């Protein structure tokens, strides 16, 4: 049983902690998060700006910028300890086994090199033996795969000759050119028009099915999550507050923050008189995080204990856990009955 489990596990993150050492003090951007990702699974990471969702992803790629540092926990990718990689191993790891695509395709491609050059380079960085002609052929195949027409001409063009959606397609092609097992998408649709967003999402879903890669999809858009993800981690102030299968998160949310997020999201089936309910208050000051649950000051069902102690994770369903004292309370009540 356990062996089988090991075989399906692509990525295992345990108690990962990332801190930024700024002149004003230590900012615990990621405060001990854990999750597993199986082969071919799509996980959404949802949270507001500054909740640490991007930093967590950067630490998997070894792309944390100074003064950010991983200060604890472990990242295991296919049984290998990613945090123990030497700089050279890390360079070989990036782009070949894990790829990343970013939020703003307008600035993520180097403006002074052709698209072809940048695609070929991504491939040849990891496949030293491939000839230039073969690499170009492969780059063109990738471009066709992500839905770019007229590839031969497009290869010779510069990024400024592409639209935003097309550039994101290029970024995806570039990310997938080495057949990575995991793709980290850091808000890949945020900077795009809604119609283009839908196209890019469809493309990613399609490619995921074709290649069977795992995806970590970072976003603050719950609609996107419902569309593409198998499971969801909701992050708040550097911690995962709720984690579970996508249906559970949407239909049986337990954490007040998740509920708040869902209430603040426009729905197609809503009645015209229904109002969107925002989450009151402001995000946590990460330099001086509160002692107890970070969401407590904004939480409508805040209790005394919430302000003093961080709640433990409680299993509220199959593979569904939540860090909230309310759930602890429910569990105790359930046991009493």
């Amino acid at each position: 049983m356990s062996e089988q489990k090991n075989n399906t596990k692509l990525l295992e993150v345990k108690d990962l902690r990332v801190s930024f050492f700024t002149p004003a003090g230590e900012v615990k951007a990621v405060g001990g998060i854990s999750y597993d990702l199986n082969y071919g699974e799509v996980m959404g990471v949802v949270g507001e700006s500054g909740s640490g969702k991007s930093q967590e992803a950067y630490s998997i790629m070894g792309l944390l910028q100074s003064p950010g540092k991983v200060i604890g926990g472990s990242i295991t990718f296919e049984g290998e300890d990613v945090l123990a990689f030497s700089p050279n191993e890390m360079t070989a790891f990036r782009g070949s086994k894990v790829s990343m695509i970013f939020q703003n395709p307008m600035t993520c491609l180097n403006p002074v090199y052709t698209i072809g050059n940048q695609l070929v380079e991504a491939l040849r960085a990891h496949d030293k033996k491939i000839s230039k002609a073969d690499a170009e052929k492969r780059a063109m195949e990738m471009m066709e795969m992500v839905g770019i027409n007229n590839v031969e001409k497009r290869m010779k063009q510069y990024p400024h000759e592409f639209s935003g959606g097309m550039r994101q397609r290029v970024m995806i092609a570039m990310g997938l050119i080495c057949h990575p097992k995991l793709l980290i998408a850091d808000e890949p649709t945020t900077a795009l028009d809604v119609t283009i967003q839908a196209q890019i999402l469809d493309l990613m879903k399609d490619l995921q099915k074709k290649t069977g890669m795992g995806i970590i999809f970072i976003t603050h858009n719950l609609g996107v999550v419902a569309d593409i993800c198998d499971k969801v981690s909701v992050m708040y102030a550097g911690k995962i507050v709720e984690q579970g299968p996508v249906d559970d998160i949407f239909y049986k949310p337990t954490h007040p923050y998740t509920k708040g997020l869902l209430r603040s999201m426009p729905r197609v089936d809503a009645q015209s008189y229904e109002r969107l309910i925002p989450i009151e208050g402001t995000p946590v000051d990460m330099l001086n995080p509160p002692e107890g649950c970070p969401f407590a000051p904004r939480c409508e069902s805040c209790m005394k204990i919430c302000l003093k102690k961080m709640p433990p994770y409680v299993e509220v369903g199959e593979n569904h856990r939540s860090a909230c004292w309310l759930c602890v309370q429910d569990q105790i009540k359930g046991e009493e009955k």
Partner: protein
Amino acid sequence: MGKYFLKRLGMALLTILLVACVTFLLMNAVPGSPWLSEKTPSETTLAALNAKYGLDQPVPVQLMKYLQNLLHGDFGVSLKMQKNRAVSSIIIEMFPISAKVGALALLWAVLVGVPLGCLAAFKRGKLTDSILRVVCTVGISMPSFVVASALLVVFAGGMATFKFFPTIFDASLGWRSYVLPCFSLGFYPMCYTARQTRSAMLDSLNQEYIKTARAKGLKNKKIIFKHALRNALIPVITYLGPQVAFTLCGGFVVESVFSIPGLGRYMVQSIQNRDYPVIMGTTIFIASFIILMNLVVDILYKVADPRISLTKGGE
């Protein structure tokens, strides 16, 4: 494209005309005349000389006459320094000497300055960066006659053990003559280039495409020299363009210290001597050269950055 160059040419001619007029007027506004020396000539001689070279006429008339001759490619003749020799032939003789020293100076300035700038940017905040910053600040703030004199004292005079190079420039001695002048002439541009490269590199290393390049798994060397440097080159090219013109036309100070018979030194001497046609000739020559270098810079922009379109006025 042809239209673009035509436009640039028109603007260049206009600029040269403006430079010529302003220089001519300023030059005539300065008291003194080419004929003043220890032994002042008699009134009649002065009048005869002025009449011969047209200096007795009102300044606007002189200017018109000069411009007319200029249109025919005639720069006039030297009044004093090399009496009656054509200014154009003086420039043709002096410029190659200045240009050779200047080109070598700039060559080492760029070849050393750009990599040092990259190094400093990559090692930002580390010891290497601090050392380079001190060296470059010293280089930028130290006048070139100090650098040149210090080099002379150490390597060409005072200390016998280090006396590798001649004190006075002599082309027949070969490369030995060039080392010190080129070093001192290139030191300032080298430091400046390094500083410019450093700040441009820091700027470009912070761009998102660098993050993409890292995420692709490229090696540091490739990230720095392929992705960051090409984008960082534009400010460096901007600085180097006019600097090429200045340096190639001769650093006056360095040419004086090493007694190099170059254009820069000659130009300053001509001003001291009020040798009007030589002043005009050298000024117009240097101005044209700077204009030409600016055009070259604009074309190089296009080469370095495909987004820049020459014809659409900087869009």
